[in-house]
Each structure stands twice: as C-alpha cells, then as structure tokens.
C-alpha cells in the first residue's frame, strides 16, 4: 500500500518569507501526488497535483511543488507567504483499488504565519 510522510507537523514563518513544506512518499511504479489545504473549520481544497509530465507543478495561491522521483519527494513551496496562508496542508498519494483511485493522506503540516 502507498504511504505519505510529512516531515514537519508545524512550520512557523514570518510574513513575506519563503516556505517549504516537506513530503515523502513510498516508492511505486506509477505515482500520482497531491497537495490539499484546509483552512480553519473548512473542508479540504486542492492546491495542486502531479499526474505526469513536468516535474514542477504550479498551483493556486502562488504555491508550487516539485516531483523528485530519485528522492521520492514532493515538497511544496511558496516564495513569499501571507497571513491568509495560515492553514493545515496535507500531502496525498493516489493508489488504485479495484480500478478506482483512492487518496492516502499524510499527517498534515500546520503552517503558521507571524506578522
């Protein structure tokens, strides 16, 4: 079964500073990777996904992630964060079960932006 490890449970940064949220996945022949964001008291929202093609994936709200097959990583980055980016971020991998795709989530990283 696929698995995802998010290396940091909490990441505090100052406003306008760059941030990187780390994610490693278990190796597989085909891998599909996702980052979701969860704002307080809301459901999850897709930030970006890697299915194939370019290893640098751009998402919403200025976020991007790089798929690195040799390091089995899919780290999320933003060059300059805002207070509004305060949220929980989840990395997920998709695995196939009986022909259907199923998401397996990491434990989450809480991003806190300080003014």
């Amino acid at each position: 079964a696929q698995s995802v490890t998010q290396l940091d449970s909490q990441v505090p940064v100052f406003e306008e500073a760059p941030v990187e949220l780390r994610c490693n996945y278990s190796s597989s022949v085909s891998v599909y990777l996702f980052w979701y964001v969860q704002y307080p008291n809301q459901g999850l929202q897709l930030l970006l996904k890697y299915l194939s093609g370019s290893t640098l994936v751009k998402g919403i709200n200025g976020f991007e992630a790089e798929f690195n097959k040799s390091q089995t990583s899919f780290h999320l980055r933003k060059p300059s964060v805002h207070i509004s980016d305060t949220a929980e971020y989840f990395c997920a991998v998709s695995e196939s079960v009986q022909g259907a795709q199923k998401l397996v989530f990491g434990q989450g990283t809480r991003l806190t932006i300080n003014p």
Partner: protein
Amino acid sequence: EAGVAQSPRYKIIEKRQSVAFWCNPISGHATLYWYQQILGQGPKLLIQFQNNGVVDDSQLPKDRFSAERLKGVDSTLKIQPAKLEDSAVYLCASSQGLAVTDTQYFGPGTRLTVL
C-alpha cells in the same frame, strides 16, 4: 456551482448512542467519499461509492458504521453505537468519476464529539 453540503456541522453525543450524518454531493458527481479525520491526523477513507454502489469499504468498521447512497445522489453515514474513539471530523467529498484526473471536492465536515 454549489459545493458539497454536509449536516449537521457539529454533534455531541454520549457513548453508546447512535448518530447519522448527511451529505449532498456536487450535482452530477457520480463518486462520493466519506472520510474520518481524527484530530492531528490526515483524513482516512471510510467508504467510496460510485453512483449507488460501493467501490471500497475496506476501512469501514462494519460492526458499528454503515453508509448508504440509495438513489445515487445524497448519502448518509451512521454510527451505532458510538465509542469515544469515534470523536473526529467526518468529511464528505465527491468527484465526477473514479479516475485519478477527477478532482475530489470536500464539504466542510461534521465535527463529532463522543462523551
């Protein structure tokens, strides 16, 4: 476009009581998911429907949890009887289909507290 609707938003019950959650997916979405998100963890898939059929319920504790999607639209998730460890946020999500390219859209969740 209306998003995924869930009710109630909050529920407090005592152990051994029963509880039911309701989900209305995005119109036209054939696939519906129920996730359990325990505090400090990522969402875990409980059950996945394609129209009114079950695709995957391998992680559903069937001795106490049940779910149905009788008309292939809205769905209910029931717990009977509840245990303390069932305290969590229950998230409903929907997608157009089962393919990895079909984005999952999440509802705001129902926060269950079992006393």
